[in-house]
């Protein structure tokens, strides 16, 4: 029994622990402090620093342990009696601290760690007050690590937390140690720079000032700052983080702990993305377009203008002539209010948070299979799974913390199968199998995998099982594999590895899983009885959908056709709700061109830049009679807006957000809204007043009250949220959909380009964050043979020609790509927007690439 509860005695106090857990862990949880440096709950135990030595007076068998034992490596046993205050423990502690300080420079006033330094704090608590060292302190040669991590290795106490982090968690293994004795040096290998997207965690775990934050360096001291703890809002994972501010300025972000989501790690995008809050691109006051130019205006003016224009359109064409897009970058409360504003005040159901076609495809696939979106899987489940199927997902680039969870599972022996055109890198030595179909043929590869699973004995059961079983029975594995360009042997091996029976399997669908692939992912999840996670890009897409930002769904995910649901809404809002579904984000563009929709309200989204069918979207935006942009940052859609309203970022708002596993977490305001930005839920209430149809919800608690009434499972979370949030899980039951696969595309010659989102390059927020500029630059990735063929090396510029437009991008030679496939970051190809349509984007668009300019060569050595 691993989880058996036992008790032991520490300094006379009873401490509850799980059997076998480190004594130190149990003591810290109980609030009894034992000094320690090398121990970290989420890293392996090495027992090196020797600061946690304790006296085991009774090892649970009535006998004392003769030597002092490290509490971090001493498993808790029932009836143990431990002392941390006995004279010999005191003496050992004083000795250890003396040794630790023997070579540690006393430059605390200069050091950024000063004030939050475990060495400083524990020295004050446990060490002798006098120094007896007369020797010169150790000095290492100065080295740089990266743009984010500033080393001062003279302060290092060799706890090896950074080494263990990069080897165990991150997998890059950048840190290591050299030399012996008191010359032991922790550092990175010179030919292996610290470029990992989660490298910033070494700053948090370093117990001294040896690794500090280069971007935060000397900008503030910890005692001047206040922090807000809550979920990160830059992607849909929702890692717990601490946002620190001094005065009205954000200073830094550090990792928070949430064992259900991110353990104690955050990615560097989350760590440095806050710099977008203070970016020059922020919209700080309302703007109204006058004489062709956007000019500053007051809130009443702007709201009055919108009310007048919308009022006229409503009178002339009715509510159906107004459509709203966005909400995935807002709190649940603001998203709820956005939907309520449309349905109640404007009488329009055309409100949709899924601006990107990918989000639309994935959510519709889930609705088809499960009747609801999300709640079928958990992030913690990913971390402890025995089998993982990744569909169109490259987690290190898209959701880095999910990558760490996949790695955690793999280290625990999980088999990981990736279905992605590229051989994605999870920094695993073993356990990762690749099925690399042609781009656009992911669904076929998944069907082949399902067939192989059926051959291995997996039988679909439940709703739609018969049809699916029939589809699998009639499928030909070899033909499917041939068309998808995968090896049937590998498909069979992957199926065996996923172990259809008994093992816990998680299917993680990433941005590459679109349309048919998303539907097949759902089928596979049902076939494997697996948990299913869809990793969307919008941080609160899940919450926005739950709040009813869907043309056919009301808050709580209840269908519009349900009269009782409509009545409930009417009861809460006061106005009637139309039964006819509105326009989805896919239908809005044609409707705008055809003048069926005259006004468009863009709430925290930027279709002009981020929609893959850019040309069509821009035409539609131009055709729109009246466009409102309600956003925090100036973006490409600004050009089409008549009125612009400033919104705060999620760092400036109170509320709640829901992550991809449907965990509702409380968001705390980290800094007051910049400029004249005001909370969107308030703005909608004020706008409704300006339109002389005031909404009932004019305060946050009223918004929450309505949301609680209408969204049944949010009733609890919105009234009381525990620190780690509440995961609103759904029953894992759905229906197989045995849709026929589209005909296989004829083999395409030449180079095909696929687009994939990179977290640090997607969205206007990330683009405006100055601290993210040091992340890897946007690049065109080419396989080594393709790079050779066009004669471009790493870092050279290549000219990419696509649909009559061209763009220059630096080349990155990437052996994970098959020959004939190129990859570029999505959302960055703004200049190429005209050339891509959705089909091509999915199957890879034909591009011409040629070398444009060689990178400046830096002479090495000499």
């Amino acid at each position: 029994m691993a989880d058996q509860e036992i008790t032991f005695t520490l300094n006379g106090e009873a401490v509850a622990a799980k059997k076998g857990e480190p004594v130190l862990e149990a003591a810290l949880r109980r609030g009894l402090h034992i000094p320690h440096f090398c121990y970290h709950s989420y890293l392996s135990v090495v027992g090196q620093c020797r600061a946690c030595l304790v006296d085991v007076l009774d090892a649970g068998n009535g006998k004392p342990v003769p030597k002092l034992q490290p509490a971090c490596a001493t498993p808790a046993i029932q009836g143990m009696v431990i002392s941390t205050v006995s004279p010999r423990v005191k003496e050992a502690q004083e000795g250890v601290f003396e040794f630790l300080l023997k070579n540690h420079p006393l430059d605390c006033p200069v050091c950024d760690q000063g004030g939050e330094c475990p060495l400083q704090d524990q020295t004050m608590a446990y060490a002798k007050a006098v120094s007896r060292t007369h020797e010169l302190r150790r000095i290492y040669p100065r080295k740089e690590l990266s743009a984010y991590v500033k080393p001062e290795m003279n302060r290092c106490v060799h706890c090896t937390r950074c080494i263990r982090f990069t080897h165990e968690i991150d997998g890059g293994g950048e840190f290591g140690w050299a030399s012996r004795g008191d010359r032991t040096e922790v550092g990175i290998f010179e030919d292996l720079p610290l470029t990992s997207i989660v490298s910033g965690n070494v700053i948090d775990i370093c117990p001294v000032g040896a690794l500090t934050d280069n971007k935060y360096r000397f900008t503030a001291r910890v005692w001047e700052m206040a922090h807000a703890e809550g979920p990160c809002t830059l992607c849909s994972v929702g890692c717990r983080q601490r946002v620190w501010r001094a005065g009205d300025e954000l200073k830094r972000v550090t990792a928070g702990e949430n064992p259900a989501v991110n353990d104690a790690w955050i990615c560097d995008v989350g760590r440095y993305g806050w710099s977008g809050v203070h970016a020059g691109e922020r919209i700080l006051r309302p703007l109204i377009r006058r004489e062709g130019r956007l000019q500053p205006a007051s809130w009443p003016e702007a709201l009055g203008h919108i009310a007048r224009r919308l009022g006229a359109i409503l009178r002339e064409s009715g509510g159906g002539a107004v459509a709203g897009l966005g909400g995935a970058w807002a709190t649940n409360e603001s998203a709820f209010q956005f939907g309520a504003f449309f349905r109640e005040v404007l009488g329009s159901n055309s409100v949709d948070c899924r601006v990107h076609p990918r989000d639309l495809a994935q959510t519709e696939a889930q609705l088809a299979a499960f009747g609801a979106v999300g709640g079928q899987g958990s992030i913690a489940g990913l971390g402890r799974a025995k089998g993982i199927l990744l569909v169109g997902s490259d987690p290190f680039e898209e959701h880095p913390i999910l990558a760490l969870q996949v790695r955690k599972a793999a280290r625990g022996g999980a088999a990981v199968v990736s279905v992605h055109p590229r051989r994605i890198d999870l920094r695993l030595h073993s356990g990762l199998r690749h099925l690399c179909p042609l781009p656009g043929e992911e669904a076929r590869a998944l069907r082949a995998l399902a067939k192989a699973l059926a051959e291995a004995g997996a039988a679909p059961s439940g709703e739609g099982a018969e049809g699916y079983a029939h589809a699998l029975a009639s499928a030909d594995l070899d033909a499917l594999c041939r068309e998808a360009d995968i090896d049937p042997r590998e498909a069979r091996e992957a199926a065996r590895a996923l172990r259809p029976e008994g093992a816990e399997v998680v299917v993680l669908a990433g941005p590459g899983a679109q349309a048919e692939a998303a539907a097949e992912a759902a089928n596979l999840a049902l076939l494997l009885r697996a948990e299913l996670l869809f990793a969307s890009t919008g941080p609160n897409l899940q919450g926005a959908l739950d709040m009813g930002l869907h043309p056919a769904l009301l808050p709580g995910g209840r269908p519009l056709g349900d009269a009782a649901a409509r009545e409930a809404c009417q009861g809460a809002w006061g106005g009637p709700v139309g039964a006819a579904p509105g326009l989805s984000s896919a239908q809005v563009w044609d409707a705008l061109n055809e003048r069926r929709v005259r006004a468009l309200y863009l709430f925290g989204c930027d279709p002009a830049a981020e929609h893959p069918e850019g040309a069509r979207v821009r035409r539609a935006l131009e055709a729109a009679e009246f466009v409102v942009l309600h956003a925090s940052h100036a973006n490409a859609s600004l050009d089409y807006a008549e009125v612009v309203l400033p919104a705060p970022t999620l760092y400036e708002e109170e509320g709640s957000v829901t992550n991809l596993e449907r965990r509702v977490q409380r968001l705390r305001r980290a800094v007051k809204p910049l400029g004249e930005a005001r909370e969107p839920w308030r703005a909608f209430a004020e706008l409704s007043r300006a339109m002389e149809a005031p909404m009932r919800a004019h305060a946050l608690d009223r918004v929450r009250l309505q949301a609680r009434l209408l969204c049944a499972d949010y009733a609890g979370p919105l009234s009381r949220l525990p620190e780690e949030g509440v995961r609103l899980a759904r029953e894992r039951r759905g229906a197989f959909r045995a849709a026929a696969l589209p005909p296989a595309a004829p083999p395409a010659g030449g180079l095909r380009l696929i687009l994939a989102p990179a977290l640090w390059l997607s969205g206007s927020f990330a683009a405006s964050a100055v601290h993210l500029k040091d992340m890897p630059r946007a690049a065109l990735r080419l396989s080594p043979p393709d790079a050779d063929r066009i004669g471009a090396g790493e870092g050279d510029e290549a000219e990419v020609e696509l649909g009559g437009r061209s763009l220059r991008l630096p080349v990155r030679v990437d052996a994970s790509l098959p020959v004939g496939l190129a990859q570029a970051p999505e959302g960055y190809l703004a200049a190429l927007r005209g050339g891509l349509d959705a089909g091509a984007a999915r199957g890879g668009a034909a591009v011409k690439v040629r070398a444009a300019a060689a990178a400046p060569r830096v002479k090495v050595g000499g």
Partner: protein
Amino acid sequence: MLAEIARGLWLTLKHSWRSRVTVQYPDEREEMPKGYRGLHKLLRWEDGLERCVGCKLCSAACPVDCIFVESAENDPARPTSKGERYASVYEINELRCIFCGYCEEACPVGAIVLGNEYEFCQDHRDKFLYAKRDLLVRRTEDYPELKARYDEKRLLTYV
């Protein structure tokens, strides 16, 4: 009654024999006692580098929050202070200051001291906001009386 008058006169007489305590300021000036806490000075090391490393402990110690410090990184080629850090901004609001001397107590490098100077009247409130250039001495040797302000043995000399 007479006795009381005599006692009063005696007291007057006694005081007339005592030495005068009035100082004819500004013609005459008293020497300030050791430990007098007057206008702040920011000191330098002997090589001319600023002592202050911008650690902000003074501002943390200040009970009335009258010290504002911003720190920055030294240019290794032309350092301002020893070590990596220096105070790019150092301001004291002398109107708000209560001359408690906690800043001096907190300073690990003996940079900020309260000097003997008490004559710093101004005709405008804004002028009491002393910036770094107003506080920084040109040469510490010019102020021998300030040396007694800090215990040299307790300074951090690591830098």
